[in-house]
């Protein structure tokens, strides 16, 4: 991991009408780091993730990517900062058509050869699946892998994960996250993952932001946050308090 700052959040906030979803966030994201954003439902985690590639705009503060305002070149930003949604949108058509969806506007992607597409599928461990197969027939885990491959074709530098395993069983969740970690290592990716499952993220993230009611309540490594008993909020939630 090097020290180059990719994203810099300076007093960033987000509100809808009178409702403050995110309040005065200050942190940065360094290249090749794996950052997990943890917190209970409604904490503002997904909203925070959407700010990274401008699917939502901050309503206050300054947010920069490589020192530049995000809105300078939105399309390039979004190609560089891939987003894996909680529920992947799989388009009607074959696996190949889904992989090449960005080929509608990017001729380099449109010209990707079949054997190159298979390499992307191998990368997400979808081995020996025909490119012609109907993508909507894939299982939940396979769909999430296909969605990851579709993002990787854009050759992103940053990958945003919005609870990508929330609809999968624990074993499959670990297998997807293991895959993400391997892909990160191979491609030198920077990752921001949003999750409510701090036990799952413990295996992968280097740094954690704890978010509650739109505010950062703690930030640091798992070791540092354990020392502060910062995860007690999850224990309380598990007990139903």
């Amino acid at each position: 991991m090097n020290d180059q700052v990719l994203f810099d959040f300076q007093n960033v906030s987000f509100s809808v009408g009178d409702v403050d979803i995110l309040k005065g966030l200050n942190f940065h994201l360094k290249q090749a780091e794996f950052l997990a954003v943890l917190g209970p439902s409604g904490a503002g985690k997904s909203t925070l993730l959407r700010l990274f590639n401008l699917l939502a705009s901050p309503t206050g503060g300054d947010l920069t990517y490589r020192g530049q305002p995000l809105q300078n070149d939105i399309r390039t930003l979004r190609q560089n900062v891939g987003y894996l949604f909680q529920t992947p949108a799989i388009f009607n058509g074959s696996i190949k058509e889904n992989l090449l969806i960005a080929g509608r506007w990017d001729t380099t992607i449109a010209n990707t050869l079949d054997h190159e597409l298979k390499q992307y599928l191998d990368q997400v461990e979808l081995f020996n699946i025909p490119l012609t197969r109907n993508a909507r027939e894939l299982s939940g885990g396979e769909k999430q892998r296909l969605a990851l491959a579709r993002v990787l074709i854009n050759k992103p530098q940053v990958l945003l994960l919005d609870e990508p395993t929330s609809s999968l069983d624990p074993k499959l969740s670990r297998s997807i996250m293991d895959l993400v970690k391997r892909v990160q290592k191979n491609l030198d990716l920077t990752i921001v993952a949003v999750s409510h499952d701090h036990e799952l993220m413990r295996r992968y993230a280097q740094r954690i932001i704890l978010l509650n009611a739109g505010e950062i309540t703690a930030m640091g490594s798992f070791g540092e946050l354990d020392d502060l008993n910062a995860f007690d909020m999850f224990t309380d939630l598990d007990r139903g308090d």
Partner: protein
Amino acid sequence: MQPDFYTLTWTDLIVSLVFIAFAIFLIKQWKLDLEKTLLIATFRTFVQLTLMGYVLTWFFGREHWLFMLTLLIIMIIIASYEGTRRQKDEIPKFFMAMLVSLLTSTLLILGTILLFILDVKPWFSPYAAIPIGGMIIGNGLNSASLTANRFVSELKHREGEIETLLALGATPKLAIYDAMKASIHAALIPNINAMMTVGLVQIPGVMTGQILAGIDPIIAVRYQIMIMYMWFTTATLANMIMLAIVYRQFFTSNMQLRSELLREST
């Protein structure tokens, strides 16, 4: 022997109320509770069309391009209002979108017909401009309303797909292309079906009217063919212009889908 034309007198029209009486009898038999509504509709049909006849007669007596244009613009404004009222979902600037699309398609298609196809002299003759303009506006209104309704449904249905495409680097127009295509298809297919079956299973209204008024069926058919072509192009053009304005309302200047509009309009 072929008659010159059949004249329908006011007395004949009163006799035709026998149809409504028969319908009311049937409705009563089945206890459908539609009698009152049907009576109001019968009365409105009579009053609205009679008034329209007098308005048209008044306009037909004044051959001036300004009169013709004013009447067409009033018809377009009323149609745009009606289209906005019919829209079940909230679409920002929808009235403006309807107005621009109906105005553009009407002027372009009506102008082509008057100047180059029928070669009407003078070109603003209300005898041609008003009825043909009315057909163009009516068809454009129906088609654009249908497309707009379907477009919002498509956006709701495809919200995840649209955000995925935006997140991959698509422009808003590229991201909603599939939704646009599906909604225009849905609106144009009835027009295409009508073109496929015309003359086989139905004799269209304009042709029927002309034949009843004593026009040679061969001539009436030519008019009908022109009208079918005109309808399709009107629908296509009105839909495209309307959607080109409407789709932008669903995105911010930062290429973000305004999902809140899709929630509000459920």
